[in-house]
């Protein structure tokens, strides 16, 4: 049934136009519906109204184009690259394009998420169609004016020209175009004719950022707004027993001290699976004040008694639990090919290694915060959030309000990394404002943010390979993780398909510590583990590590296994490119190299790290990174993403960890949690594979492979295999600050 409807799918159903009273034309479309692959839009355009749209193109009668982009900006540059795609097909000079963050009515949104590096990949076709359709309407309007056929006109850079050489600007025909039928099946440009896509384009918020204009959630203000600081249980596993707020209430600027949490608890009784509300689900104390500082000081003055409700876990406890899992038999098999047991039984040689990673905090530079104003008429929420639609739904349930009453406005975000997929902080703000019936901003301190977070769970991998007659005959990977596990598709990444007997097993320990998505979930450490393993495997087999990969990929070419996610030719392409550009194997004396290659988030990446040793301390000097992400929409933005991903990956692999003692995170600010700093960063040298394929995401895929590139380089330099992150903790050296 679904199929027959899809056949009837008409492009016009995701576009609608109208004239503007102020002059000009407005084109509305539902970006997120359009981006959903399996969406079946209403067949009849009359079923749509402008409330269904979340993105608009306004063309003024001077020909100026404003694109209202709904996509949340977390630093991955989609607020620039998505409008570039529309402008390309619309064929207007980029200087005439203005981009505005749309104010969002959260009704009917589908894929309104910045995460998973998917925005560009899913938006590519629909955005091009939208731009091209709008252009065709303008051309049709000009043709009607001239009394000729549209095929006799061409449009370029905002100007329509006919065979006689007469011209009309887009602005001259917007009135007429707006009332025309929306054409179907318009032709898209040949990628070789692109003039905007593929050109370096600066971040559209650049001027505002470098002059310090209010952009972020923390900068948002309204008249009469109060500030709220939330005191949450210090340990995971504790609940509030009692508190004394008399000292806090007596402090200047403090207006009230209340508790929240009841509503979330009621909700969770009905729906235990609600992830967002399970974050810090217990009763919390909230200090309301007339300034941020008064709220923070007030919070610090509240005296509390906490009760232990469940196990207060610590890092050794987690280590044991995960090792027990690896040694036990409580696994789920995600993928199994051939017979691994038999391959291992018949092997000449078996290599088995265990790799370990710690908890990590997100540490977005802008701590979690949200504005809420709950009144009888509506629930107004403003702030940095990656999932406004889901958050609006939860808030409407939580406060028992109609979803139509809930309005979410997204601000620019001071980083996301997965943390802002969870709207717990927005729910808190809504609950607070609901209680006091005033506009309020919930502000987390860095300590709140780091110690009551949603963490990257620690994971241990045990990987084993069987070798027979100089070939890899079996590959078995066991994953033990806290709370979650790799999901289906990850087990179809390399080397799945390349080894005949292959098995990917997962098991997890359920902890009361909240965990969640963190930049490149699961693969952020899985790639380090597997690519470190392959480096050692090549050595044990006595073969060249690059050749080993190329040989394995050879087997996957032409595969009929549709589950395989990566493209062997494209992985081969990035490997060859990185070998060439990194000068692999021909380094200066004292420079050691490590290689790594990985596919995730639809993008193929290979990396080589060059390190030197300085008094036993590894210093990463350069990372060469070869990327196949299809067409590069905005090379400038892409470079930022790629380099950021590489350096972020090095930082967390080498330096960062969050440990627990009695349920309490042992770091709560940057004096006890190390993040990479400039003196520790290599120069990242990026090379793109030339491609005409649709673009794929860049926010995540360059991070996962780099840990192994560094570990393998350290092995080349020292002969020591590092299997436990953060690596620096396991090198027995004190690092000096490197200038």
């Amino acid at each position, binding site marked *: 049934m679904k199929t027959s409807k899809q056949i009837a799918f008409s492009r016009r159903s995701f576009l609608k136009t109208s004239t503007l009273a102020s002059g000009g034309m407005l084109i509305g479309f539902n970006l997120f519906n359009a981006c959903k692959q399996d969406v079946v839009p209403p067949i009849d355009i009359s079923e749509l109204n402008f409330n269904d749209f979340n993105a608009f193109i306004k063309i003024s009668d001077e020909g100026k184009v404003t694109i209202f982009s709904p996509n949340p900006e977390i630093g991955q540059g989609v607020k620039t690259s998505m409008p570039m795609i529309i402008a390309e097909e619309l064929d207007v000079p980029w200087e005439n394009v203005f981009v505005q963050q749309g104010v969002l009515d959260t009704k009917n949104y589908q894929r309104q998420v910045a995460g998973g590096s998917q925005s560009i990949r899913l938006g590519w076709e629909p955005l091009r169609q939208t731009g091209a359709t709008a252009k065709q309407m303008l051309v049709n309007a000009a043709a009607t004016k001239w009394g000729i056929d549209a095929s006799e006109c061409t449009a370029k850079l905002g100007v329509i020209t006919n065979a006689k050489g007469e011209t009309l600007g887009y602005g001259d025909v917007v009135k007429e175009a707006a009332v025309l039928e929306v054409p179907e099946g318009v032709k898209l440009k040949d990628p070789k004719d692109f003039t905007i896509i593929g050109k370096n384009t600066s971040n559209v918020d650049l001027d505002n950022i470098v002059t*310090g204009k209010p952009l972020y959630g923390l900068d948002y203000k309204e008249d009469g707004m109060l500030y709220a600081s939330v005191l949450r249980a210090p340990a995971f596993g504790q609940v509030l027993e009692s508190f004394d707020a008399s000292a806090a209430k007596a402090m200047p600027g403090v207006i009230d001290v209340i508790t929240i949490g009841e509503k979330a608890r009621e909700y969770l009784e009905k729906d235990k699976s609600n992830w967002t509300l399970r974050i810090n689900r217990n009763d919390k104390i909230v200090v309301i004040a007339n300034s941020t500082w008064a709220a923070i000081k007030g919070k610090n003055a509240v005296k509390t008694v906490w009760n232990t409700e469940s196990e207060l876990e610590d890092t050794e406890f987690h280590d044991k639990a995960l090792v027990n899992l690896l040694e036990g038999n409580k696994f789920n098999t995600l993928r199994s090919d051939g017979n691994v047991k038999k391959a291992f039984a018949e092997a000449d040689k078996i290599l088995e290694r265990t790799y370990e990673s710690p908890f990590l905090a997100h540490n977005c530079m*802008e701590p979690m915060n949200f504005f809420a104003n709950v009144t009888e008429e509506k629930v107004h929420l403003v702030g940095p959030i990656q999932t406004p639609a889901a958050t609006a739904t939860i808030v409407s349930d939580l406060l028992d309000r109609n979803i139509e009453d809930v309005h979410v406005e997204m601000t620019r975000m001071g980083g996301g990394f997965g943390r802002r997929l969870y709207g717990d902080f927005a729910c808190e703000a809504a609950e607070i404002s609901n209680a006091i019936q005033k506009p309020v901003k919930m502000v987390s301190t860095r300590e709140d943010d780091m110690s009551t977070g949603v963490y990257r769970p620690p994971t241990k991998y045990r990987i084993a390979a069987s070798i027979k007659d100089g070939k890899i005959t079996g590959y078995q990977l066991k994953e033990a993780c806290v709370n979650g596990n790799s999901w289906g598709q990850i087990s179809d990444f390399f080397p799945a398909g390349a080894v005949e007997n292959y098995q990917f097993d997962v098991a997890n320990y359920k902890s009361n510590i909240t965990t969640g998505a963190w930049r490149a979930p699961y693969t952020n450490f899985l790639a380090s583990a597997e690519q470190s393993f392959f480096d050692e495997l090549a050595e044990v087999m006595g073969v060249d590590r690059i050749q080993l990969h190329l040989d394995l990929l050879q087997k996957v070419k032409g595969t009929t296994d549709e589950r395989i996610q990566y493209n062997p030719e494209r992985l081969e392409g990035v490997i060859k490119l990185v070998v060439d550009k990194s000068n692999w194997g021909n380094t200066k004396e004292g420079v050691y190299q490590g290689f790594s290659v990985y596919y995730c988030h639809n993008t193929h990446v290979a990396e080589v790290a060059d390190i030197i040793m300085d008094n036993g301390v590894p210093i990463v000097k350069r990372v060469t990174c070869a990327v196949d992400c299809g067409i590069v929409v905005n090379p400038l933005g892409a470079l930022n993403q790629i380099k950021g991903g590489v350096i972020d990956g090095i930082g967390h692999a080498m330096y960062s960890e969050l440990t627990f003692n009695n349920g309490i995170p042992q770091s709560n*600010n940057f004096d006890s949690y190390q993040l990479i700093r400039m003196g520790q960063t290599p120069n990242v040298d990026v090379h793109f594979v030339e491609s005409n394929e649709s673009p794929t995401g860049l926010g995540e895929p360059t991070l996962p492979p780099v840990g192994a590139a560094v570990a393998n380089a350290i092995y080349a330099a020292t002969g020591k295999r590092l299997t436990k992150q953060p690596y620096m903790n396991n090198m027995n050296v004190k690092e000096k600050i490197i200038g």
Partner: protein
Amino acid sequence: MPTFNLKINNKTHAVEADMDTPLLWVLRDQINLVGTKYGCGIGQCGACTVHVDGVATRSCLLQISQAEGLNITTIEGLSENGNHPVQEAWKDIDVPQCGYCQSGQIMTASAFLKRNPSPSNSEIRNAMHGNICRCASYNSIEKAVKVASEKLT
């Protein structure tokens, strides 16, 4: 609450605040200069950097009671039209990702270049080491400081 007279971006502001209120929060909550960012509150990240008598200073550590009589410059007052050579360089290179740390980076870099207009690479890396960029735009920051130094000399 006591009143303090602050000289910020060449304007005097009379603000009422608790003695121990960090300049950071006075700027953000009371004077509406929100370009100065909160990142850690303990002098570790540099997001809150302002100039005090021309020297890069962590506004999260400067109590308001000590700020009277000082010449304070925030990102909003670094240049008239956002065209300080460091801001220009930041735009040329398209440094920001999420952008949140960048006003602090710019304030650190501009104070540093004033003291040392043509720094070496390692001097740049040392000078910028106290400013965290969680998006890891370090390569671009380094390059932009270099470009700014060329603009200045």
